[in-house]
């Protein structure tokens, strides 16, 4: 069956989400939104789905809508509650998971949304800002890094600025030492493959290659040495059922294609 790589990424991620989990998704993050909605329709009717600041019930929604803006009011049609920033922003440690991206992603799962500095500390390149990621990465039970582009500019040995801590410099037990309640990044999902982190020094390790992708492609496109396991497996491609739900209910406008 034919599919786009972003569809594969969304399907693969959706299998990570368990029924009943509280999942945070920002706006303008189509792969994360699709993964969450797909999990909700496929196996997670109790997944706590949010669209913008609304918790929604999409049971009877034939089609979800795109969220070009977090504050789009129109999901109110499915909303059963709305996030009260004055009390709820403090409860992010109750999130089971969320998704993060970065202008840089490093070998230990740290991410950078702030920018790249010159030696004198001034910004050569300024990014958009941390949004909620600094805290979420510290407190959410686990999270997933999503990279829409896999290249050596994004995948660097060490982020120039760390705006959200993954595993720091990889020192065993560092998150516990800093009293960060969350377990940190679980996987990194890119157009080339799925990566996890070694249990000891938390270095990024290939978990599976997407169909048709070679180990060479991964090595060439990563700005650091990726840990390679003995057995390299292939990412399970989307099933027919997944693709059908994805295209009919989750992403009818083909944002992922």
């Amino acid at each position, binding site marked *: 069956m034919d599919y786009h790589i972003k569809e594969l990424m969304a399907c693969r991620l959706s299998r990570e989400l368990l029924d009943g989990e509280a999942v945070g998704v920002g*706006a*303008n993050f189509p792969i994360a939104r699709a993964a969450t909605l797909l999990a909700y329709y496929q196996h997670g009717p109790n997944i706590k789905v949010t669209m913008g*600041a609304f918790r929604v019930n999409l049971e009877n929604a034939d089609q979800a809508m795109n969220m*070009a*803006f*977090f*504050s*789009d*009011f*129109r999901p*109110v049609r499915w909303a059963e509650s*709305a*996030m009260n*920033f*004055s009390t709820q*922003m*403090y409860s*992010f*440690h109750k999130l089971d998971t969320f998704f993060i991206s970065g202008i840089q992603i490093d070998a230990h799962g*740290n991410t950078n949304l*702030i*920018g790249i500095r010159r030696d004198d500390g*001034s*910004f*050569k*390149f*300024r*990014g*958009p*800002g*941390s*949004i*909620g*990621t*600094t*805290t*979420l*990465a*510290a*407190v959410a039970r686990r999270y997933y890094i999503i990279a829409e582009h896999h290249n050596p500019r994004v995948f660097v040995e060490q982020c120039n*600025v*760390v*705006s*959200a*801590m993954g595993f*720091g410099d990889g020192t065993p037990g*560092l*998150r516990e*030492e*800093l*009293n*960060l*309640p969350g377990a940190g990044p679980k996987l990194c999902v890119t157009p080339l493959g799925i990566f996890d982190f070694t249990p000891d020094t938390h270095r990024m390790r290939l978990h599976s290659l997407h169909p048709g992708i070679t180990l060479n492609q991964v090595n060439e496109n990563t700005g650091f040495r990726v840990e390679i396991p003995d057995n390299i497996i292939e990412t399970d491609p989307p099933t027919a059922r997944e693709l059908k739900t994805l295209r009919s209910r989750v992403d009818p406008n083909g944002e992922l294609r």
Partner: protein
Amino acid sequence: MKRTNVIADESAALDVITDGMTIALGGFITAQHATGLIRGLARRRVKDLTVIGSVSSSLEVDFLISCGCIKKLVTAYVGAESAAPMGPFFKQAAENDSIQIWECDEIIIMAMLQATMAGIPFYPVRGGLGTDLPQLNPDLVPFKDPIRNENLLAVPAMKIDVALTHASIADCYGNVQYDGNPYADEMIQKAADQTITSVEKIVPPEFIRRDPFKTVYTADMVVRMPFGAHPFSSQGAYIEDTAHLNEYVMAAYMATKGDDVSWETYRKRYIDEPEDHLSYLEQVGVKSLLSLHEY
């Protein structure tokens, strides 16, 4: 003696905000900013403001930067999501070091607001430990909690002179209600010494009293400004004007690349020449405004 009517006109409201003040903006990313009032500050070229930008902010902060109003910026994001990953003038100013940026994420900014509204010197958070935020923002102070000796980051309170928010309705006594989500506006109002709120509509006190639980806060000054959030959305009233956002982003982007023509045109037409909010809306035009329905 009679109770004070707090309805003010646009220019009286703008007079409150003077060079060097610290102001906090309500709304969230592309919704519910008091854009009409903020545009007035840009038109007046109010200087040296410390701006606390709505937790995560958008192009209203970007044009304030372009008009030279901001000395120091407190925000976790400046952009318009799918319409612009970043505010062009924000990016340029950050790269030129022409504004100070108080680096934070949304929860750190909320922690600052919480400390301020609670009248305590700081609020403790976990996020930021192990990142470069405390290095970029020395106001964030790592410390050990006095009970369990855990690592935390102390986020200091800030003195905020004026909050500028935009809501759906208010009465002449300043009771403010939202048809949508107030986002962090309640905290922003409580953290500020004074609040000026623009509203889509002023209603009789009796309408407010139909549901007192919907009143989010009481503003010190209320300004009637229909379409006051434009080009952003005002929940329950109109959605984002994506075409206008794109027009802005394109012009601003070109300006940061050295080509000022489109931006000069934009700035004159929408910021400098309209003498007030209604004149701005005239520039936008009825057809555009009324196309921003939600269905």
